């Protein structure tokens, strides 16, 4: 307990940054994932092709490598400057969006084709077909895998510690320099991650219950 209380400052700053990374990345990757997921089921071949290319390229690249590019490569390109925290959010969002796109696509595919055909038959175009007919049914099916992706995102944020972001993954290095036993520090870090994941699991349960329908 002393290890935690004596170093509360680094724990608070660390987990606050972790939450900032998580919330922004979750938001951006969901929006981007939605767009890419819709591209992958769209009737336009170019969009389908682009969606497939993006998912395959980014999903097959190790996250550390994507971080490496944004932390060390991007600043040399002479483009608008971002802080390392924002570069980390961009890296996490681009990476996680591919997983979210695939999760959503699998959800879209659970909706029988007849639903989309019926929507077309009554004159809805592609976007209303997706937002009014397919998505409400698809979201139900994707809640568990969607939350799994978010939990993975939460844990992936620790990679940012190696790229000049002062977050929970860096707590061990800080505490260790202050002479704290690394094992106990890591157990505390793990404990807080478990708490955060349990909150996400609770949200998942609530959403599943709320959107449950008898089929």
């Amino acid at each position, binding site marked *: 307990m002393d290890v935690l209380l004596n170093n509360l400052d680094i724990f608070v700053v660390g987990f606050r940054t972790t939450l900032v990374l998580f919330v922004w990345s979750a938001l951006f990757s969901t929006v981007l994932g939605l767009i890419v997921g819709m591209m992958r089921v769209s009737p336009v071949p170019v969009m389908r092709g682009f969606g497939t290319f993006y998912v395959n390229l980014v999903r097959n690249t*190790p996250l*550390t*490598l994507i971080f*490496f590019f944004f932390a*060390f490569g991007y*600043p*040399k390109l002479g483009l608008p400057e971002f802080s*390392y925290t924002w570069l980390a959010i961009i890296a996490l969002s681009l990476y996680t969006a591919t997983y979210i796109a695939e999760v959503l696509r699998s959800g879209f595919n659970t909706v029988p084709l007849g639903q989309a055909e019926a929507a077309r038959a009554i004159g809805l175009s592609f976007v209303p077909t997706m937002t009014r007919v397919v998505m409400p049914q698809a979201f139900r099916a994707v809640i568990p895998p969607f939350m799994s992706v978010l939990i993975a995102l939460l*844990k992936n944020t*620790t*990679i940012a*510690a*190696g*790229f*000049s972001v*002062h977050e929970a*993954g*860096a*707590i*061990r*290095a*800080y*505490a*260790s*320099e*202050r*002479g*704290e*036993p*690394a*094992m106990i520090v*890591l*157990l505390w*870090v*793990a404990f807080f*991650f478990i708490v955060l994941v349990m909150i996400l699991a609770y949200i998942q349960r609530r959403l599943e219950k709320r959107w449950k329908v008898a089929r």
Partner: protein
Amino acid sequence: MRKGMTLFAVAAAAALVLSGCAGDEPPAPGGGDGEDTSNLYEVNDNVELEGSPTFDAATKAGKIKIGVKQDQPGLGYKDAVSGDRSGFDIEIARWMAASLGFSEDQITYEDIPSANREQALVNGDIDLYVGTYSITDKRKEMIDFAGPYFITGQGLLVLSDNEDIKSEDDLAGTKVCSATGSTPIQNIRENYPDATPVEFDVYSQCVDALKDGSVDVVTTDQLILLGYAAQEPDTLKVVGEPFTTENYGIGLPKGDDALRHYLNQVLTDGSDVWQGIYDATLGEAGVEAEQPSVDDY
């Protein structure tokens, strides 16, 4: 525990990436091939040391495990191509091993990064640690230190054409880089709020960032910075005086007082050897230094 595994996996992945990108680094100054310090001391074949569990276990195994750094030119450096180790800390490690009766081929080196040092000693993964290891009271709660064998302090490394930054008073508005969570960067965070801290896993990444202009200053113990400056004197320079005090010691498992007193005695008796080692390694950069007296608490 899961977090520990994640961190380990991340560290391993990062190490893979880093090693892939470190291939173009120039070799360490002096190279480690030319310098020969083995004539300064002899492998002790009659070690009188009783009551040291660490020494007894190492003798029984016929080899000694020493934790070192591998990315600090002039101090603890491992040549990526040949695998040869060189530097002041490495020579100190060889000297200590020789005094305990272990020759060069009986030493097993382990690359242990800063954050894992105490745990490695506590777990018994290594018998000694020699690698820019600052003696602090907090660390003494978990392990013991022989020495100090060198005294340095926080310094600043800048590009050699930088005339704006001359000391720690000029840090306001600059980007200051050091290793993640290290004592120097914690000092910057707390006492120099006008400077922007940048943290990477290892110092060599900071030095690269300095050279391409992403950061303005690299800060850590001045001795480490001198190693980099000696490597590329045309591009890098060390400015100002050390503004903290760091005592480098030799990390030992907690409670092995017999070994600690023995090594302290070796350091005290061997001032000629110390000077010889210094002159053959860091002394080549042209900075004089004296051996500090040991603190045999």
